[in-house]
């Protein structure tokens, strides 16, 4: 994976709370057996009308959203199913980070494993972001800070090991494999 240090982009705002993974990528698109090409089905039921034409009212279909890499979403983003297809679809579409006041556990785990940053911020910062769609913001993974164009800089938490892997472009599997001797010892002790 490519190392990730900083993401600078204008934001797209989807203020709905509890945006679940069935909305991010509906189940009928889960029959794929690869990870690629899901971007075209991202938010499919909100993005397209019944006849398949883009829904002009949906934020991602508006010119202002073009090229944004940071999604600002309402509380509890990514709840529901464990489908990793959700971060795959967001990444394939072009997003590199999601900002909310809460991001569901499994989604957050899945996102980190694929290089999509789950950024959890306080309510005041979130409110500002919701009120300023399209704001140019910078997410700095090294310092774990989000900088807003109004000069504010706020800290966000990110799991230490996942951060280390993302900064250096490492795969977590390599670390687990480096512990296989411990795993074998654990298994041997269980058999006794």
């Amino acid at each position, binding site marked *: 994976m490519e190392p990730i240090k900083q993401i600078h982009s204008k934001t797209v705002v989807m203020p709905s709370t509890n945006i679940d993974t069935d909305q991010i990528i509906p189940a*009928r698109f*889960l*029959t794929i057996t690869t990870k690629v090409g899901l971007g075209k089905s991202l938010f499919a039921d909100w993005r397209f009308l019944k006849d398949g034409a883009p829904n002009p009212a949906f934020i991602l279909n508006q010119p202002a959203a073009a090229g944004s890499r940071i999604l600002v979403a309402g509380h509890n983003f990514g*709840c529901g199913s464990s489908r990793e297809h959700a971060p795959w679809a967001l990444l394939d579409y072009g997003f590199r980070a999601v900002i909310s006041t*809460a991001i569901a556990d499994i989604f957050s785990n*899945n996102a980190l494993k694929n290089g999509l940053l789950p950024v959890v911020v306080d309510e005041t910062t979130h409110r500002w972001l919701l009120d300023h769609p399209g704001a140019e913001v910078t997410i700095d993974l090294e310092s774990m800070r989000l900088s807003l164009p109004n000069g504010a800089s706020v800290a966000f938490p990110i799991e230490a090991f996942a951060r280390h892997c993302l900064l250096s472009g490492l795969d977590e599997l390599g670390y687990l494999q480096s512990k296989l001797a411990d*795993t074998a010892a654990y298994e041997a002790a269980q058999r006794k």
Partner: protein
Amino acid sequence: MTARTMFDKVWSAHEVVAEAVDTPAVLYVDLHLTHEVTTPQAFSMLRAAGLKVRRPDRTLATLDHSTPTRTDQVFGSTPIKLDAAAKQVRQLERNAADFGIELYGLRDARRGIVHVIGPEQGATQPGMTIVCGDSHTSTHGAFGALAFGIGSTEVGHVFATQCLLQRKPKTFAVNVGGRLPACVTAKDLVLAIIGKIGVSGGTGHVLEYRGAAINSLSMEERMTVCNMSIEAGARAGIIAPDETTFAYLSGRPRAPKGKDWDEALKLWRALPSDPGAKFDASVDIDASSLEPMITYGTNPGMVLPVGGAIPASAGNAVFDKALAYMGFRSGEAMLGKPINVVFIGSCTNGRLEDLQAAARILKGRRVAPGVQMLIVPGSQEVKRLAEAEGLADIFKAAGADWRESGCSMCLGMNGDTVAAGAYAVSTSNRNFEGRQGAGARTLLASPYTAAASAVTGRISDPREML
């Protein structure tokens, strides 16, 4: 020694490498359950890296999510209707064969929904760590196992190393006193719990359900409760194993036998949380005051007693959007609203007791004209038992459609879907927009409430029919 929670005991018994500031714990996985939808990418990763499945003996595969439920497509010569689903089924068959994993294949009598077959076969046992690329893995916590859902990348990690990198979650005691009234089920209880703590109320926590009302539940009811832990945002749900647990497991194909059983029992009896163990959070619920519950919105926390009225919005845009999607208005009564479809099944309510509950209502009655009722057993074994007991005959006589096992209309991946705009009373676990089909409107409820509503064609209180 300090008093420990059950979660703490199971967690620490599985730490291959303890958690540190810079690194999560390396947690050992006792049982890895797999299915066709979340594994293809993990097997591709193994192939690309030239890796094997480290412990095929701790891995079990089934077909459930995208499999057909029509008998002719499962046992006959009719091809699976959806090409992409057929491809996933074939791919898991090949992957399981290539990597030496036991698969309960399409025509296997042990096949079924992954969270139904684990317990049914006795593979799910107290004190285990159990994972699956599926968020409802929390179901297995009903046995005092630490069981949680993972993504496809993590599925690959477990295949390759039998371990996962995990930060230790917090604990949350859900104390349920009293006793459930007649016709009020475990489903109503868990919906009430989610209504109380909210759909993100459990985020970062493992919920331990405890108290008199939980102790008196059957294993199937406990599974229904633990199943929906994820709908409160929780990492997992767990219930202390007791004599009910042991009686359920005894004699099941994969349960320990003879001397091993006696040894296992000793360990299992030591699992429950110690008296005085501290939880990071807690909530108290009185089961005796509960009523049959039904959802009215687009997440499981938007729930009320079936006799209730839809609350006022208080100018909340998200709430208004949910009601607009459902075609409902604040202040309306739920009782009497017309419905189009009834689905009984899923890993939440697709077990034998759920079908028995539906049959109590349906016996000697008919599904209302114009209503489609689909009853899908959670496993082929549930199907066999339901047919042996005569439940299937009751369903067919009532005009319901009786199918082969699978996830079916819970997520509509196999073509069993609800039409846009139609109302479905469903015993599944998610009422998200479009979950059961694009534009479908889902009302989550118990098997009693679902069956009662099928008979009248309207949302109904099952207590009036028993």
